């Protein structure tokens, strides 16, 4: 279908883009993998679209004092194929390689995905497990928020009108950390019915550090704190995996009921943890 008519701006500098977006009435366009289909179906009808695609300098992956900074316009393909990321933060590269299909990964961007905050997107599980931060910019200022605070609810973020995501910041993985992202794929959409990201570190044979991020299960991605505690407290993988959806109100749709989703979350948590601990 053809979208409703809209004004289109393609600024070539960030300052120009922020000025166009300042009053909050225009919609920012990154890779367009969510916004364009919605516009073509006329479910979204923004009056003014500001295309960020011609602004130089928003696509990068670089390491700086213990952290990896990823520019908002970096595509999923650039993330999955980044040698730096594969070596220094493999969990995020693995998550990127699980998104949609090749076409989507070539167009879609990490900034666009995170700003859209789909409750079943792949990145948030890994970004939660990585305790990632997002740096936001607006005309004349910036702020940095933990992802956990940035994602407020289903498709709702802490982005203020006129604000853009500048970059996503993840830590450089410490030596000896095992990671894995395990996803049950929705056959039609490619989104995660359930997606579990795990990071585990062992000291003297025992798990001393565990981070588990969950996507697809609830209204927004979350960290499975009770499962993390169970694992770090000396519990085995199965006991920890059983607690991955503790206290969570699960989503339900035609494909997967809430009960089924909870069950699958436990199964996939077991898989992710076994992989991360190298005992799969």
């Amino acid at each position: 279908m053809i979208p409703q008519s809209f004004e289109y701006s393609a600024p070539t500098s960030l300052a120009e883009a922020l000025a166009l977006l300042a009053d909050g009435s225009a919609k920012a366009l990154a890779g367009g993998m969510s916004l364009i289909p919605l516009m073509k179906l006329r479910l979204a009808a923004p009056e003014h679209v500001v295309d960020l695609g011609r602004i130089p300098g928003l696509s990068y992956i670089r390491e700086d004092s213990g952290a990896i900074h990823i520019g908002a316009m970096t595509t999923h393909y650039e993330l999955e194929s980044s040698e730096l990321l594969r070596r220094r933060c493999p969990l995020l590269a693995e998550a990127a390689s699980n998104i949609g299909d090749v076409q989507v990964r070539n167009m879609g961007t990490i900034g666009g995905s995170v700003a859209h905050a789909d409750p079943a997107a792949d990145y948030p599980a890994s970004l939660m497990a990585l305790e990632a931060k997002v740096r936001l910019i607006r005309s004349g200022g910036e702020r940095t928020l933990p992802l956990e605070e940035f994602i407020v609810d289903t498709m709702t973020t802490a982005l203020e009108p006129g604000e853009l995501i500048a970059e996503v910041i993840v830590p450089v993985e410490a030596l000896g950390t095992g990671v894995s992202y395990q996803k049950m794929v929705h056959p039609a959409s490619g989104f995660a019915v359930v997606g579990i990201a795990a990071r585990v570190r062992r000291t003297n044979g025992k798990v001393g550090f565990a981070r588990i991020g969950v996507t697809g299960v609830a209204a927004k991605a979350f960290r499975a704190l009770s499962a993390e505690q169970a694992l770090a407290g000396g519990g085995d993988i199965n006991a920890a995996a059983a607690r991955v959806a503790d206290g969570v109100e699960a989503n339900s749709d035609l494909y997967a009921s809430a009960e089924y989703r909870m069950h699958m979350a436990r199964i996939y948590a077991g898989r992710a943890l076994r992989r991360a601990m190298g005992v799969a």
Partner: protein
Amino acid sequence: MKIDGLHTVPVSPERAYEALQDPAILAKCMPGCDHLERIGPDEYEMKMKVAIASVQGLFGGKIRITDQKPNESFRLLVDGSGKVGFLKGDGLLTLVPSDRATEVRYQGDVQVGGMIAGVGQRLIDTTAKFIIRRFFESLAKEVQ
């Protein structure tokens, strides 16, 4: 689709029941509610603007309240439609006192059709719960 949930409102069941039947309060707390008008006994006409992510839809419809058991429970019938689809809902709200507050449980059946259901099936349950959660959050603030 079945939908259920539980929210706590920090007032007595009497006050909560009264608030849940008060068109002025409902209009104020319903996210995106543009217009709510009484068109008959226990029947209201409503216009609502739903904006989630970049999706925006204008819905118009009717709400009917039946089977009232004051301070205990009532049934809510919703029938709405807009350019992007339609919605029919039938829900039972039960109020249970709990430690100087009231637990409101809803159990219902929702049917969503049209474009929004075709492409957004995956997100209907999540979105419905999101709107209900927003409603009860504002209601809790409003009645205090």
